[in-house]
């Protein structure tokens, strides 16, 4: 009897202790109470967009520039990542882990959201369809980016933490196609700009355009006719053309009147102090302009952990001791210096394309730029070509021009002065990354249909005469129109497959560069590297080892002789 009493006392004690030990997490919600409604869903989506925005260095935009024939590594000799991407070599066993983990984090966030749909109370069917559409768009986007950079990757469609091998490309692409089709079918067909507050959200038009890009890459690189769908069947070229024509006809997207107005150097604070833009009646169309089909958006960072467009900084003009000398640029690291042979080819191929060319390239020695001074070799600059990206660069504004003493004119980035962003130059890189520009939609349409309409619309805006359709013309047009926008390398890859390196080497080797002020010739061997790797990047070694051998490293990324 006593035994039982003792036992019950113990049970009661333990039970009451358990109550004492129960605590509530007041700092976090958890998956039992989140997401419950549409507003929660939008927060969940924002976190997935945040994963997208977090990847700057190492993104397909960054890699697509660096490895291409348009750029060299630049920066300092110890800026390993730019040189690793440029030469397709191992700078660090985990060199683009940032891309891998952030995109998979985005996928996890979307999967969690999709798994929660059943318990969510939506206020309307439109709300539900919009949220689902965006979620599918984002998953499609993440997998398309991962597949573009790494080739085959593990396809994870639930939040269950599993360790699986790479999924065959066909299966991943069919999932991407299905996700994007779901996005197209669910997202409302609102005209661009109809609801400015929704700027930045994926739209039906973005999904249709992205599907076209995926179609072109998959059918090009993998030499297929159609893009399979997971649920069976496939998306044909005609279907994609229909989607693009839907964008052209119904989206409300259009070209901005002057090519230069796409880029922030034409902003109101800079343009009249900058020789290149002064008095030309230019006016920046802004981050949410009509030509932006889909962009990664950046805002005033509230903390260092917030994403910022660091590409502007990393690829900006390097090594100037006085920013005023290279106004409105400088304060950058000088990555992705532009291949002078590319600019020369551009001049040769399209001599009249001055608006686009000089609207895209900073030639520091040219009187067009009106720089007071350019100091070469600053901060031990290597692969310097004195040519920089103009589209994405740090753009400055004088802060105190009313001061009589020009030396006292302050200087800061335009986002700080015009928009009130944080003062730190690093955090003031707030220019949106345009991932899909309407001109790309037009060019994709030309490419898919073999017609010149799209090309010529784009040329007309640049003040160029029409041409007839040929793949060569299309290729040139894409190279110049979309220069330095992270597209070139992937275009080469889908057009030439494993032989893309041949083109790259041909277009860039032997170019003149300065290594730490010393003249040299640029040389790389991408022919061999892209053949060996199939053009796909190294999977972070950490992932390989953490998978315990389940995940295999991509071809060409192990063994000797591949390190930087």
């Amino acid at each position, binding site marked *: 009897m006593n035994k039982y009493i003792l036992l019950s006392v113990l049970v009661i004690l333990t039970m009451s202790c358990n109550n004492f030990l129960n605590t509530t997490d007041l700092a976090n919600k958890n998956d039992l109470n989140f997401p419950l409604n549409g507003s929660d869903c939008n927060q969940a989506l924002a976190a997935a967009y945040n994963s997208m925005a977090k990847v700057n260095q190492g993104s397909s935009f960054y890699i697509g520039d660096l490895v291409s024939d348009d750029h060299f590594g630049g920066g300092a*000799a*110890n800026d390993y990542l730019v040189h690793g991407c440029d030469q397709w070599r191992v700078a660090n066993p985990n060199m683009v882990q940032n891309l891998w983990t952030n995109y998979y984090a985005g996928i996890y966030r979307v999967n969690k959201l999709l798994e929660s749909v059943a318990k969510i109370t939506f206020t309307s069917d439109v709300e539900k369809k919009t949220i689902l559409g965006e979620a599918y768009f984002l998953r499609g986007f993440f997998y398309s980016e991962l597949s573009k950079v790494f080739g085959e990757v593990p396809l994870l469609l639930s939040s269950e933490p599993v360790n699986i091998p790479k999924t065959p490309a066909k299966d991943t692409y069919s999932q991407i196609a299905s996700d994007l089709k779901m996005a197209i079918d669910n997202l409302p067909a609102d005209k661009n700009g109809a609801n400015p507050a929704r700027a930045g959200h994926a739209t039906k038009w973005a999904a249709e355009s992205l599907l076209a890009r995926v179609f072109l890459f998959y059918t090009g690189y993998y030499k297929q006719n159609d893009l399979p769908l997971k649920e069976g069947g496939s998306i044909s070229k005609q279907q994609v053309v229909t989607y693009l024509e839907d964008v052209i006809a119904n989206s409300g997207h259009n070209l901005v009147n002057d090519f230069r107005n796409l880029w922030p150097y034409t902003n109101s604070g800079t343009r009249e102090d900058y020789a290149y833009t002064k008095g030309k009646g230019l006016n920046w169309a802004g981050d949410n302009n009509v030509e932006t089909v889909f962009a990664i958006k950046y805002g005033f960072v509230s*903390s260092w952990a917030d994403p910022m467009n660091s590409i502007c900084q990393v690829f900006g003009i390097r090594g100037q001791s006085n920013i005023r000398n290279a106004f409105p640029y400088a304060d950058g690291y000088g990555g992705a210096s532009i291949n002078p042979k590319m600019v020369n080819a551009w001049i040769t191929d399209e001599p009249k394309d001055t608006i686009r060319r000089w609207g895209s390239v900073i030639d520091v020695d040219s009187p067009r730029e009106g720089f007071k001074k350019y100091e070469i070799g600053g901060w031990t600059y290597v692969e310097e070509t004195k040519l920089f990206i103009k589209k994405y660069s740090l753009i400055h504004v004088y802060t105190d021009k009313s001061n009589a003493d020009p030396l006292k004119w302050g200087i800061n980035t335009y986002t700080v002065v015009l928009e009130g962003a944080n003062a730190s130059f690093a955090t003031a890189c707030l220019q949106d990354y345009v991932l899909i520009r309407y001109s790309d939609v037009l060019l994709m349409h030309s490419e898919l249909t073999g017609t010149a309409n799209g090309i010529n619309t784009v040329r007309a805006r640049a003040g160029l005469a029409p041409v007839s359709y040929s793949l060569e013309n299309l290729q040139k047009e894409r190279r110049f129109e979309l220069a330095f926008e992270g597209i070139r390398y992937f275009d080469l890859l889908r057009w030439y497959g494993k032989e893309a390196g041949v083109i790259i080497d041909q277009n860039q080797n032997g170019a003149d560069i300065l290594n730490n002020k010393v003249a040299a010739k640029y040389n790389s061997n991408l022919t061999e590297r892209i053949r060996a790797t199939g053009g796909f990047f190294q999977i972070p070694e950490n*992932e390989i080892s953490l998978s315990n051998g389940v995940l295999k490293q991509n071809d060409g990324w192990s063994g000797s002789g591949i390190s930087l």
Partner: protein
Amino acid sequence: MKNKNGECTTILRPLSSLKKIKTLLKANKFMKKKLIEGISLDRGKVRKIWMTMRLIVFLFFVSLIHVSASVYSQKTKLNIKLENATLQQVFSTIQEQTEFDFFYKNEQIPAEARISIQYQNEAIDVILDKVLSGTGLTYHVMDKDIVISINGATKREMNLQQQKSISGKVTDSSGGSLPGVSVIVKGTTTGTITDANGSYSLSGIPANATLQFSFVGMKTQEVTIGSKTTINVSLAEETVGIEEVVAVGYGVQKKKLVTGSTIQVKGESLQKLSTVSTLNALQSQTPGLSITSTSGRPDADYKINIRGLGTINNANPLVVINGIAGGDLKTLAPSDIESIDVLKDAASAAIYGSRAANGVILVTTKQGKAGKSSVSLDTYYGIQNVEKYMSMCNAQDYMTLVNEATVNSTGKPIDFSTALPANIWSKLQGGWTGTDWMKELSNPNAPVQNHSLNITSGTDMSTYSIGMSYTNQEAIMGNPLKESLERYSFRLNSDHVLLKRNNRNIITFGENLLYTYKKNENRMYLIGRDHPLLPVKDENGNYSPNISWDPDRSNPVAMEYYNSQNESKNHDFRFNAYFEVKPVKDLTFKSNMGYSLTAYSSRSYAPTFYLGTSSYRSIDQTSQGSTIGVGYQMENTLTYNLKIKGAHNIVALVGQSIEQTGLGESLSGNNSGSIFNSFEYAYLSNVKTITPGQTGLSGSYLGKWSMASFFGRINYDYKETYLFTALIRRDGSSRFASGNRWGNFPSVSAGWVVSNEPFLQSTKSWLDFFKLRASWGQNGNQEIPSFQYLSPISFSNANYYFGTSKSNYVVGAYPSMIPNENITWETSEQLDFGFDSRLLGGRMMLAMDVYNKKTKDWLVNAPILGSQGAGAPYINGGDVTNKGIELSLNWNDKIGEFTYGISANYAYNTNKITRIANPQGLIDGIGISAQSSGQLPPYRAQVGYPIGYFWGFKTAGVFQNQAEIDAYKGAKVGNKPGDLIFVDLNNDGAIDAKDRTKIGDPNPKGIFGFSINLGYKGFDFSATASGVSGNQIMTAYHMGDKYKESYPTYLMDRWHGEGTSNRYPRLTSTASPNYNYFSDIYINDGDYLRIQNVTLGYNLKKLFPAMPINQARLYIAVQNLYTFTNYIGPNPEVGAAPSDWAKGIDIGQNMPLSRTFMIGANLKF
């Protein structure tokens, strides 16, 4: 008197009465003593007193025996006539006629004696004189009793019973009076205690008795009374520590009976070292404890590991202050500490169960003592200077190296005359050797002072201890601002007996209150790596701005000024109160409640400045923050002491406790645009504008955490020779999911006092005490964030900017972690064998321990697949083994008036990871800022290696010439003379990450401490030293890819021509693997021995014994007098590192050690 049978065998009635008297006398003394102490008496006691009073009266008559005898015996006249009668017949005849009684022993009466007498109206003495003459007998008249005895014997017997009064004073060796000393008549329970002045008096004590004087901590002394009426005694301190009592968690135990591995350090020996930090003082005194400071700044953090690093999670031991778990040794003033007990083995620590895996440190603050009030005042003042500066190249050497690097890379030398601003160039031409930033940042003769006052007093009913202390310390670096620490502490500990009965404290109440206030000002920013070519100030007296030579580098003195305007205040209040009830003898119930309140506030101001295009702050920043944290604990214990036949001793303890902490909130904000622009006014209310992106606001709750526990312990000993302890604790913690919440932590230990065995009696002459110990136990560790079993949705770092405004963002929310519902305790299991011994009459003490500590199921945040998309949960994912030996040796002796003591301790430990539960079997460290960019972390945790070992390339020297390069067969990275030869460990023809290996271990193999104490006629001298051996340090004072950064002088030994160096490769201005790859050229041995403290003191009381104080000691001391080391950096004690489990990473940005000269005084009243 004859017995009933008429046989005069023994007639002892009066003598046995005397015995009774004696017994009652004892009772009387006892009662008397109690009366003095003011105890009310119950009815039984009153009765006893009445009886006692009567006896006192009786005794009074006894003492007046001669007087009373003369009265009756003189009045009484006898008529007596006897013929040839025996003596017995004479006595009985007189007895019949009178009221006299005769007492005699039959055997003493000569049977043959026959007497004939005849007297008329004669006095008794005349008659007896006649009768007894020639018989050898004598008589004694006591009132109406007449004692007959052999001549002289009666006199002796009567003397024996003679009662004396004794009084005197008890003092300690320094002459101070000792209250509360027990004075007992040996072999009896009769006695008293000395009063507040150390005085005592006893009366009615047999003259041949021996008095025993005893006092805790003093040697018991015995004095035979003899003819003395005043006995003054000076008690010597007990030097032998084996009878000491040590804290063991929820109670104390005699040290000689302890079966686990514990060490006790007395507060006095900590205070003697005159350090601001308790942890600093502990360093040399605790074998098995690794205490490493992270910097030389006041209030620096220390890394404490007991018996090696057990986990890469939180490896700090649990600190228990006055029984209340959770406390910070850093906030404790040494003067508040009575003792620190470290529970090192699992068996001892298991009483703290789930938090004891890394050992337990029990702190007892100074407690009150019964007796005379004692007041002590301790004070010191010192000046501190940098012990050793980091040796950096001066301007000329710097220019040589930079130029050489440039020539090596570009072939062209630098024209400094154009590369440098004209004013600097001309200064250099004038012989200026550049700026030594370390010296410029230093604060010479930084003062440190400490004053503490302690008062203890009390009676045996109530005692208290009050302490107050004030500390003020400036840092040795931080110029132009002064980093400083100010600390005030207040303590009030008291114990009160509320009910006392039968000499037993039935109900006791006590409390401990400790309040510490600490203020830190101008915490230093950072020691820069700036080149020496920049003067601190320009011609106009302004801070020199960046120069185009290296525009990224900013004036460190200016940066210090612009970045270190801050202040933080810490209030730490701890209170606990207990009731102790002893309802019956040997049973104690104790209920203890603790409460802690910590309040923290801070503010800072970051002014605008402009030193160059990459070094400016265009908008000022005002920040303020505060946190209030509350925790409480309640525990109840029941202890039963059982003695069986005086041989079996059992102490059984059961208890229960509950605890909650993390109750409280924090609030902080920052804003730009102060209307005052100065630190003095740096309050958020002085900023009037709210600016998106510049105004920050944060407030959070601290995260409640609860624990409930049950525990029990049995200590058993048989004749204090065979010792056994078993204990178990069951803890439930809110950190784990229901179902994984409860953990059991058992332990057993045993000891054998071999020296008590008869077979060791032959060695008694030199071996006083020898005890063997063995223990086994399991402890837990639960130091992880709460809610690891849920999938928390995080709202941080996931904003996204929709819409047309760049300032409006949606706060993103995402599942931040893959939940682990199965997360549970980390367990450390430890086996310990050891012995304690005392030799040569207590002069020598030797102890040793051997242990094997396995920490299993680490709570770690092991990396998971990135493709799993969320943060890694804490898992129970790793095992590590620490094995080691600890030795300690003490020798204390005296030669005449010269006393001396030497103690030494040594601990040897090896650390090896045996499991990490991810496929790689490793967890990488964090990349460190001092490394060249893009490099892999230099340290890691990996199976088969010690925690935090250095992971990098092995090198095989430097290529000296082209011929060597041409002859070299293996893979190589550099191919110029002066390049490093990296070893291709796996022989795959490439030097890559796979060739990295263990190139060093930051964990010391050996930790040692020494101390010497000497005393002679009021002079005392002591020295302490401590050190480590067998560890390596990563030294990274110069980043390989920043060639314009300052150069440490050791790089003067770089390769610059054949035969110049086989370690440091050639310098280049472009980044090169030579210095960028982390290799063994950065690894240096970290062995050192530091003389931490040398003190010379003199007690003025010896010179002026008449001074009205007990002690007046003056001393001078030096801290950190000298460090013996081969380490190339300024300080081989490198605790700072980028994560908890890393150490030994010296990036040259820590504040160096200070050397302090001080003068102080200890006064005792």
